[in-house]
């Protein structure tokens, strides 16, 4: 069931704004991370974004945490682009070598992943070298071919990254709008106070001018 919203609000409405922004952090910024991702890194990104705002309102904090999530998604999708290439390279190697299908694509993918990451064992290196020789390809040839083969999916990931950028632009405009609104309210309050002051000065001076 995907409707459930994965956060809870625990905010006392009588709290000052600074405290509210702090207590809102777990509300909208509780991250849904992948097993190999660091929550500390996510939170430090959020804190650095928040530090750029001058006394943010709770709504601004909520929007900034969404913005931080977009940045996180961009990071994930960028990694995916490289993984897509690796996947296509494994697929091509498997297709080119006649006897590789029998041993399964998974073994080849794992070996290739280790090979490209520089953490392959000797037998994995031999396995990939043999596959490349049989396919009559160098690693850069394979990469170029894989790029062509995976172009459709890479384009999709590019679209996803572009969407996150667009979303960030929307969020930034919303944050600016909230900021402008609060400045406007402050300015109007000050103007009102100045007018009241002027009025009271006028009243006092008119009282002084009256003959007793």
């Amino acid at each position, binding site marked *: *069931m*995907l*409707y*459930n*919203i*994965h*956060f*809870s*609000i625990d*905010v006392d*409405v009588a709290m000052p704004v600074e405290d*509210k922004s702090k207590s*809102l952090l777990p509300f*909208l910024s509780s991250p*849904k991370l*992948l097993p190999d991702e660091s929550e500390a890194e996510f939170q430090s990104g959020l804190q650095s974004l928040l530090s750029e705002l001058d006394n943010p*309102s*709770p*709504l601004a904090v*909520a*929007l900034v945490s*969404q913005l931080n*999530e977009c940045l996180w*998604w961009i990071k*994930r*999708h960028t990694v*995916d682009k490289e*993984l*897509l290439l690796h*996947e*296509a390279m*494994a*697929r091509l190697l498997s297709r080119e070598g006649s006897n590789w*299908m029998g041993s*399964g*694509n*998974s073994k080849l*993918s794992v070996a290739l992943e280790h090979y490209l990451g520089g953490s392959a064992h000797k037998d994995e290196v031999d396995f990939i070298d043999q596959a490349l020789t049989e396919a009559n390809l160098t690693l850069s040839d394979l990469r170029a071919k894989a790029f062509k083969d*995976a172009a459709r*999916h890479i384009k*999709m*990931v590019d*679209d*996803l990254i572009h*969407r996150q950028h*667009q*979303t960030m632009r*929307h*969020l930034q*405009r*919303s944050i600016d*709008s*909230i900021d402008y*609104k*609060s400045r406007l*309210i402050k300015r109007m309050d000050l103007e009102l106070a100045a007018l009241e002051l002027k009025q009271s000065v006028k009243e006092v001076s008119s009282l002084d001018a009256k003959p007793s």
Partner: protein
Amino acid sequence: MPNHRRNLANRCNALKSTGPRSVAGKRVSSQNSRKHGLNSSPDFECSCEYRALVELIAEEGFSAFACADIASGLLNYRRVMDAYYDTYTSPEPVDEFMRDMNVKASNPIFSELLSPSGSEPQDVREMAAFFASMQRQERRKGGPVSRRSSDTHKLIRYQRNGIARLSRAIRQG
């Protein structure tokens, strides 16, 4: 029975299935194609998150209408992003058997499996063609990363609409 043969026999037998018969089974299978549920319009106004958000936003000087719009826009956006995460983290699994099987080499097994029903070479060819098309489909979908990318790509429009709704509510508020 060798593993490949057994798997193939299971697949062939599954083709004979006529689907669910009980009411409960039909109810379950009616939800099979449901992916994310983002086309529905949930009623946020009953949730406590919504009420708390409205109270909080009202303190920032927004009108009551704007508060309601912003709160439901924010909750809707969160709903989309939660579905985005769920889609990304649970792509359709790769059917390695189908992807890696050698359809041509499986023809003798097909004919053996079909023989009790008095199969003809035409039946075997049809069975092989069916498995070959399933294999093409499976291979076209690619590996786990390709699958999660294309599944997540389908949610772009929901994210676009969600953020546009939220942004509009805030700027007009």
